[in-house]
């Protein structure tokens, strides 16, 4: 089974579980956060089990393996392209956990609370995680300052 198939399996299992426990589910749950969190737990469990069976020592928590890409079609000029590329590099240099938090917060539109839930962290840690990620990006890529300079130059 390929990795993709196994992930699909996990997703299907989540829905099976939802069906099986449909009368016991908390009605107040946020569907998107619940699904993301369930799939994530499923994959983590599978990952953990495979580590046990393959006897690999490193059972570090699940890695969030994906890179942010660039929305090329929205880039009109070379200056923008350069800036975006640099920013994209910085983002992909963030830790897996920070990337995952950013993904959940800004792509899936979860609240900090929900992100905390999915990542199994408390609210404050999640907030710090996100804040530090943004802070680092700003340090790596002080766009504002650049913009200010550009704006003040006689053009």
């Amino acid at each position, binding site marked *: 089974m390929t990795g993709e198939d196994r992930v*699909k399996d996990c997703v299907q299992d989540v829905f*099976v*579980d939802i069906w*099986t426990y449909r009368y016991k589910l908390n009605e107040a749950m946020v569907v998107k956060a619940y699904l993301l969190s369930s799939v994530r737990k499923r994959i983590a469990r599978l990952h953990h089990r495979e580590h046990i069976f393959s006897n690999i020592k490193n059972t570090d928590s699940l890695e969030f393996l994906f890179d942010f890409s660039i929305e090329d079609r929205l*880039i009109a000029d070379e200056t923008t392209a350069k800036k975006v590329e640099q920013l994209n590099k910085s*983002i992909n240099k963030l830790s897996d956990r920070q990337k995952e938090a950013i993904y959940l917060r800004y*792509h899936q539109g979860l609240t900090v609370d929900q992100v905390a839930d999915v990542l199994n962290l408390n609210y404050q840690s999640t907030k710090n995680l996100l804040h530090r990620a943004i802070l680092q990006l700003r340090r790596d890529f002080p766009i504002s300052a650049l913009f200010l300079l550009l704006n003040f130059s006689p053009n």
Partner: protein
Amino acid sequence: MQNRNSYNKIEDFLSDESFQKWVKGNDDPLNWSEWTVENPYRAKLVEEARLWIIGMKVEQTPLTNQETQKALQKVWKKIGRSNEELPFRAIWHHTWFRTAAAVFVVGLATFLYYANLSSPQNTTITYQELVKSDLNGLIEQTNNSDKPQLITLSDASSVLLQPNSKLSYPKIFTGNERKVYLSGEGFFEISKDPNRAFYVYANETVTKVYGTSFRVIAYANQPNVEVLVRTGKVKVSSNQNIRNATLEEVMLLPNQAARFVRKEQLFEKILDITQDKPLLAATNTMEQLSFDFKDIPVHQIFKTLEQGYLITIDFPEDKLKECYLTTSLSDVPLPEKLKIICESLGSNSRYEMNGNYIKIISNGCK
């Protein structure tokens, strides 16, 4: 959601779904383009946020309707399967069940382990096992009579073996240890030898002395092993061969006793034998008699010894009529007692010992 007019950080824009949509060029129902140009500071922030969104795209492979249908089918199939096996699978899927099962298994294992430990074959040590483990050739004395039996060992120690008791000992003690094995009850008087410790192995206990008198009660079918000290210092410990034995030691002084509760593998120290009824009952004439003599006629001393050791002493009454002795014989075994008496009587006095029968040969105390 926060009012967009108060947005002052990139993050505010990043988390705004409609803003993202507008950046990505889909639609703009909230009219972000107009809102942006209302304020130059805002325009800068918006431009920056726009770059961020462009730079952190997440690839999404759009799903075809067919793929969705296929996935849904698979899910329903799985649900069907899990419904069939529900009674069994459902219970296995519960964390509480797994936890309970784990606790049960661990508990069972622990129980079996300890049950095994406390089962008789592992924690009780029998006289037979002890004797078998001693590689020296041992002599075994069994007292099947109804009277105590006196045993004299090669080191001049004496043991008064009670009825229904057995003692195994080497004909001659060799090496720097003196080891004997007891089943039942015996009163030990050990000759002093600081270089050779004397050990009494009795059930699960080991009594170590250098030269004292004490009683050991260790019947195979009784729940306790008891060691009562008459004179000197005695160290009682549990036999190291007991598995899980917390090597316990009890130091005893005269009139103290140790009771080893076999089931619990624990020692109980009794500081005053006279305060403990079962122990007091176990003591007999031996402990009650005084072997401290002050200007006492020798025939009376012999009578005391006869009473204590349940022996017969044959002595020339006429010749010893006028002999009086002052001596303390409480801390020495019987042969030593007889020796001391004979030496006090005079150079020509000696004794012969044959089991419970002792013959004194003397020409009087002059």
